[in-house]
């Protein structure tokens, strides 16, 4: 006497949309699960005609890719949704952006073309701000790190303490001064070095904090305050330039 839902099955997906969003300011402290809940509620408030899975507990069809860690800000997070009626991507973008809290900002929505989005997300670019660390110290640490063929670090994962190499996945690492004009350095004399990290997506993932642990291991780099980290981009890795391309290019009309 098993029950099944009455009525017709839910309407099928007729269109897939790919979203790029940013996680900014204090909302960088939201976890991936926090974002999922906020996003699915925003879809309901914005009245996006989502496609749902069948069964007694229908779920909206949303695929999340490669979320940045809790505490890491991001300009380049990606999500794919399926809708049951065709929508204008720009209208969806505006409605969702208005519906999400400030700090979770929808930057772009495109209709999905062929191919998997996740497969295009080969690497990430991160900016790591090291307040209280002067440029020469940061540069020395970067050089020491890049000289190593391998730097083992440990991190607590779901499956317990794991030991892995934080060096091989790093495609590029550079220390630069804070951009002139952006900050008021004459007023604030505290030094601040910026690291620009390009890292390949591997298993297990090498994250910015793993690289920071590695820098501490090879060069005793110990920032006096927790560094602030922002993911600037994700996408296909261009091995010629060691840079990351825009993953939505193939989808754009």
């Amino acid at each position, binding site marked *: *006497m098993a029950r099944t839902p009455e009525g017709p099955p839910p309407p099928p997906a007729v269109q897939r949309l790919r979203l790029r969003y940013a996680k900014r300011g204090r909302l960088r*402290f939201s976890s991936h699960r926090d974002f999922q809940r906020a996003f699915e509620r925003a879809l309901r*408030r914005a009245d*996006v005609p989502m496609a749902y899975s069948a069964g007694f507990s229908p779920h909206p069809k949303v695929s999340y890719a490669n979320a940045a860690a809790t505490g890491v800000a991001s300009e380049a997070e990606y999500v794919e949704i399926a809708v049951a009626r065709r929508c204008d991507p720009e209208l969806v973008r505006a409605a969702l952006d208005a519906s999400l809290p*400030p700090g979770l900002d929808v930057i772009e929505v495109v209709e999905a073309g062929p191919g998997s989005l996740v497969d295009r997300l080969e690497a990430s670019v991160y900016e790591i701000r090291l307040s209280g660390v002067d440029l020469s110290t940061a540069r020395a640490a970067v050089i020491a790190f890049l000289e190593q063929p391998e730097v083992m670090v440990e991190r607590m994962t779901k499956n317990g303490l794991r030991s892995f190499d934080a060096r091989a996945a790093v495609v590029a690492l550079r220390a630069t001064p804070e951009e002139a004009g952006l900050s008021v350095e004459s007023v604030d004399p505290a030094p601040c070095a910026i690291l620009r990290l390009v890292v390949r997506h591997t298993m297990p993932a090498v994250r910015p904090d793993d690289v920071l642990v590695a820098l501490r291991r090879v060069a005793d780099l110990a920032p006096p305050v927790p560094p602030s980290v922002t993911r600037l981009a994700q996408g296909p890795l261009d091995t010629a330039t060691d840079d990351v391309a825009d993953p939505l290019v193939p989808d754009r009309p």
Partner: protein
Amino acid sequence: MAVESVFPRLEALLPLVQKPIQYVGGELNARTKDWDACDVRWALMYPDAYEVGLPNQGVQILYEVLNEQAGVLAERTYSVWPDLEALMREHGVPQFTVDGHRPVSAFDVLGVSFSTELGYTNLLTALDLAGIPLEARDRTDEHPIVLVGGHAAFNPEPISDFVDAAIVGDGEQAVLLTSQLIRAWKNEGRPGGREGLLLSLAKTGGVYVPAFYDVDYLPDGRIQRVAPNRPGVPWRVSKHTVMDLDEWPYPKTPLVPLAETVHERMSVEIFRGCTRGCRFCQAGMITRPVRERSITGIAAMVEQGLAATGFEEVGLLSLSSADHSEIAEVAKGLADRYEGTNTGLSLPSTRVDAFNIDLANELSRNGRRSGLTFAPEGGSERIRKVINKMVTEQDLINTVTAAYGAGWRQVKLYFMCGLPTETDEDVLQIAQLAREVIRTGRKVTGTRDIRCTVSIGGFVPKPHTPFQWAAQLDHESTDARLAKLRDAIRGDREVGKSIGFRYHDGRPGIVEGLLSRGDRRIGKVIRAVWANGGRFDGWSEHFSFDRWMAAAEVGLAGTGVDVDWYTTREREYAEVLPWDHIDSGLDKDWLWEDWQDSVGGGEVEDCRWTPCYDCGVCPQLDTEIQIGPTGVTMLPLTVVSSPVLAR
């Protein structure tokens, strides 16, 4: 004078703590008003972790009611976990609000809502982190008024050292009146300073200021009398009652957190109060009379709330939701309106009758039917008469037959252990009941794939109930009785594997009992527990029974009374109870007669449907029962299907 945000300093600590999102605020529907444009400023606290405190309806209601007023501002603050507490102490970051991240000490009032006594130590942590002196007598004009409310405030005596004032009953109108008095006092140049303000609050008759009362004790430790020590301060302080719920449709725009919380749904309170007369139930006694929200009022709140939040589930809340006079129409109307929208509806009702199953079926028309919960509360027919829970074993079997027959697969049963006059035999009958439930379920469904969960906790006698005089069962006996029940259930080879057994050990109940029925002498105990590291006592991983007992040993030394005196001792009619001067509207003689009747197995009907039995609330508070039916029906909603998004 501008008050600076502590966020920049807090932000540096957040990468180092668990679940930092709970401290950043910015929830959907949160508001931060201009500090300088307001002259009455409230910090509202729920003294538990954010995940428990954020969904609290009381705080959300007052937050919205206050912020709607011109010139009045309210921000929220919650207990911080020990990891952040340690960092805040190390870096000198004070207790802050999550809205504006302003220091709590900068507000005019710190309003704290106590649902449970086990939050008392968390109040002390917040005061200390805020830089507010722990004891009210050490505070100056510079410090906020510490004002408490909530169900636990119906006996504020154990925390009277730490609070400036307590308000009992419904807060909606009380906070507005308080705001007016604060504004008047400020505009007049703060006459009389802090004490002047407290005196103006006390003179309303609805605000209890512990410092304005003296307590004398008899040589044997009992209270001799509690008397006001200032002219104009009333002998008894009365509770506040909002009469027309439709005039107070709050929260209109519920808060939607980013962080995960204990209730991931929107709640609409469908009525307040309960007159079922369960003798153990403090909530049912202190929230009388029953006041219903109308069917149209409920429909409007659900519609507006869903649009404002995007929640996927709506809970229809009250003390016994199936008792709303138009609940069938409400359930059908909402199920019709939201059919096909993937919006879940839930009715947390635990009534044991077939009507309840019809309601649950209606609300889960096209959803999963996993579990239903019923609360017979007592294992034997005799003990159910003692507590005035008029449910027979046949009622329960009929109800679960209907539930399993309608496709529900799991039935949860709630019970209490340690009720007055209870014996081992009363509790062991729970095993018998559970067996009958499983047998019935297997017969009705023709499958063994059904379950029954028995959930049981120790009974704690509460103030303002007929059991306020009762002896609490000591924790050793509670644990022994629960162990016997567990063995009886597990040892049943026929059905044992289909019955889940969940129970709470008796020791936290003793501390809750000490705090529930304690008097002013308990303040020293609370302070000692806190000083020894007591935090989050409602969480089993933080609770330490030994810490409480050691603190009681020290704190009560020289008083002639001890923990047993407060908990396992039965009181006599003539004893002055610590909360006698807090007027919940209930007539003490009626409570006593009901207590006497209970031991003799006498029953009381629900006065919504039978004549008044003179509990005292309506004449005492000049209130009356407010129930339907209104006869109005819910019209179908015109579903607006986002044409803007369509191409």
